[in-house]
């Protein structure tokens, strides 16, 4: 159809098929469906090389790579390795309106920059940076203010890594922001789903189990998601 744009890929199709099949009680899961889910995970999360390899080995069709996949990989790398100005510059080149529309996200990126300075022990620079740039966001948004306070509190400790706010310096924090940014970019590109579909499936399992638990139903429960361990009811 002419009004379709190339960026809206066919990712949603296989999932729909999968749903239809469960509805008709045919519990056979085809290998293609599994492969598509994995491919969706790799593409959404930006594992480009893995995606291309997987396509070859599994004999899939051309993976529906988003136009922005390369850029998203670069941005994720920049964020996770602490090169925040570069990441911001890349985002602005890809989607100039994004960080103006989502000031909270912009604040998070700047906060990462601040944390980099603190990590490097450049306390004075950190304070100057915070008052020059982050204070603006803090003044407009209560959440941002709290987070800013938490970040600056790191400066009060001789060793920030042992402080109560050390979690901010862990790689998991920058990974979280990187994912947030990745999802925002995908949303900007009008992707229907900004999270991998495998995530949605796992969430669905957790939700169903909690509903069953609420009603005290006995059922085989998945207790470990990573290994898909299922315990029989006692």
């Amino acid at each position, binding site marked *: 159809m002419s009004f379709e744009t190339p960026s809206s890929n066919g990712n*949603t199709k296989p999932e729909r098929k999968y749903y239809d099949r469960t509805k008709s009680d045919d519990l056979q899961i085809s290998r293609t469906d599994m492969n598509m889910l994995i491919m969706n995970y790799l593409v959404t999360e930006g594992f480009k090389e893995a995606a291309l390899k997987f396509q070859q080995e599994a004999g899939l069709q051309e993976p529906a790579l988003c136009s922005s996949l390369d850029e998203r990989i670069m941005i994720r790398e920049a964020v996770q390795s602490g090169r925040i100005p*570069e990441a911001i510059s890349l985002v*602005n080149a890809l989607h100039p*309106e994004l960080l103006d529309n989502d*000031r909270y996200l*912009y604040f998070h990126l700047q906060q990462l920059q601040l944390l980099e300075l603190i990590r490097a022990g450049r306390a004075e620079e950190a304070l100057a*940076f915070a008052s020059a740039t982050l204070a603006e966001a803090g003044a407009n948004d209560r959440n941002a203010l709290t987070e800013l306070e938490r970040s600056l509190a790191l400066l009060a400790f001789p060793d920030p890594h042992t402080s109560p706010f050390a979690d901010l310096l862990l790689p998991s924090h920058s990974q979280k922001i990187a994912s947030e940014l990745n999802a925002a970019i995908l949303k900007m590109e*009008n992707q229907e789903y900004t999270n991998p579909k495998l995530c949605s499936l796992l969430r669905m399992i957790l939700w169903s189990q909690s509903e069953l638990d609420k009603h005290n139903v006995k059922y085989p429960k998945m207790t470990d998601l990573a290994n898909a361990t299922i315990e029989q009811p006692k």
Partner: protein
Amino acid sequence: MQQLTIFMDIESSRSYIDEIYSSNPEKLLEALVTLKNSVIGSNRQKSSVIQQGIVPRLLQLMTDDGLDPNIRLEATITIGSLAKGTPENVASLVEQGTTIVLVELLKVVPTGTKLAEACLCALRSIFQHPPAPIGALPADMRLLGRLTVIAREGSLTARACVVRILSIWCGGPLEQEALCAAGACAAVAALLAARPDAAPPLARALPALDLLAAMCFENASVSQVALTTRHGDKTIPELLMALVSRDKPLPVAMGAARCLTFIHRAGALSADDNRVVFGALPCLARLCTKDMPEDIRATAAETLAYLAEVDTSLQRLAAISNHLMSSLADIVTCSSSAAKQGAFKCFASLGANDEDIRKKIIETHSIMVHVVNGMNNQEASVRLAAVRCLHSLSRSVQQLRTTFQDHEVWRPLMFLLNDSPGTELLTVGSSTLCNLLLEFSPAKEPMLDQGAVEMLCGLTRRPEAALRLNGIWALMNMAFQAEQKVKQRILCCLGTEQMFRLLGDGDTRVIMKTLGLLRNLLSTRHHIDAIMAEYSSQVMQVIGPNNSLNVLRAVIVVLEGSYPAEVKEQALCILGNIGDGEKAKDLIMDNEDVLRKLVDYLAHPESKLQEAALFVAGNLVWRGEAGAAARQQRLADLGVLRALKLLRARHDAHHLHDKYDNI
């Protein structure tokens, strides 16, 4: 890549600002990218850049087609970012002619380029700040044609931008027709169409729904076009029907129901059409329910108010849909003024025509407390909506006597009307007064004490015909079977001159009500004499001794003028009332002009005028009163008897014979 500074701060790195004026393209581009990165995300930086006077340079770079396209693009993106700053920032951009430059650029820049997209983004940001500079975008068919092509075929971002801009721009019939002619309906249909496997994404559907609503609002011909415009095998209403369903995101369902509502109210879909009855209405009722977010409920209630505003069958249907009344009663208690307003308006619509619904609203949901609170709300829009609701409920005779009385609703109402209200509030409020002042209403007395007469007399002097009408109408209601002191207060406050001015009003309805007022003032025999005497003397004091027959003069003016028959009938009835007073009779008998008019009207082809004239003559010559014979003789001399005989001979005047016989 440009050097990345940690401090992307204007103050600390001024050098690149100078490079913005460089003639070296590379340095210029680099400086622009740095500038762009510094302003994106920070209002402080934006303000600083604008204060430094860089905007004109950016505008110049945008339009210079001798430059590297990337330089023009970065300049445009920077302007676009500035347009996402504070309202002051945007105002400053508009002042410096940014909108005009953007529009001019859109006329020439090839569609589908990044520059075109950046232009559209910037223009959209500017338009989203009220007041949008809509004047800068002319209804130029070539430009609109270009824009609709982008709306149909451009990139997703470009399409969303164009449609959003146009939805804000489209504010009147001129814009509606121009967009329709440029093919905007087809573009909207394309944006609303589902993809093979999913609904259209939010970012695409929402602006399109807003544009469609703006185009169809109160516009019959555009709505008609929308009705038949297709995308693929589906018409726009069919596309909308798919979007009002439960599985669609709430804002999309809301937008689609709003479009169907507007198309209905513009007259393109009838009130019993399935798409209204099973599409828009249930969707809106659902969006009003408790588990919806407050902003959605507010809009849904307001839209439903518009949907059901006039049609009784839709009002009845809505009243029993999805517990709507309970939902609305709950929305009234929400904190936001938009929600309160929407609920009041919706109650007003539901109760507009049906007494049972009004009863249900008041009795089962104890809404009157909220209405009174609403009239005291600090938000003007809420006060207006509460008065609208009160107006609708005041049509109920029973409620006037019970709930209205219990809650003393006239107190806040009179306060609002005396507190220099806007024209709209004054119009609705005074319409409500008309109802509150009906003779059976117990509110009449206390309202007099609160200065109702003075306020209403003031309304009759307003330039707006609707206000004059409400003022004189309410006075007429007030005078009906009123005590003499009330009547005198009205006469005294209104004044003769104003009475005459109203009798010469351009609006026939005002004249009718003025005559009605006169008639009510002169309604019982006892009052007639008192008023004619007192009024005359009062007038004499003010204007002079020869004006004692002012009421009569007023009547003559009407009888001689070219007024519709029902107006003249009223005038004759007044004459009849005067003729009923003992002393007042003489005023008529002494006035040959009036008597001659009477003879003329006895021979008038319009039977209701004949009847009225007969009523006057009957009162004048009523047997058993002093001087009846003399008056009879006088009338006979003037040809009344001859006129009566002619009247009797007419076979179509049987119903007049009874009256005739009395004479």
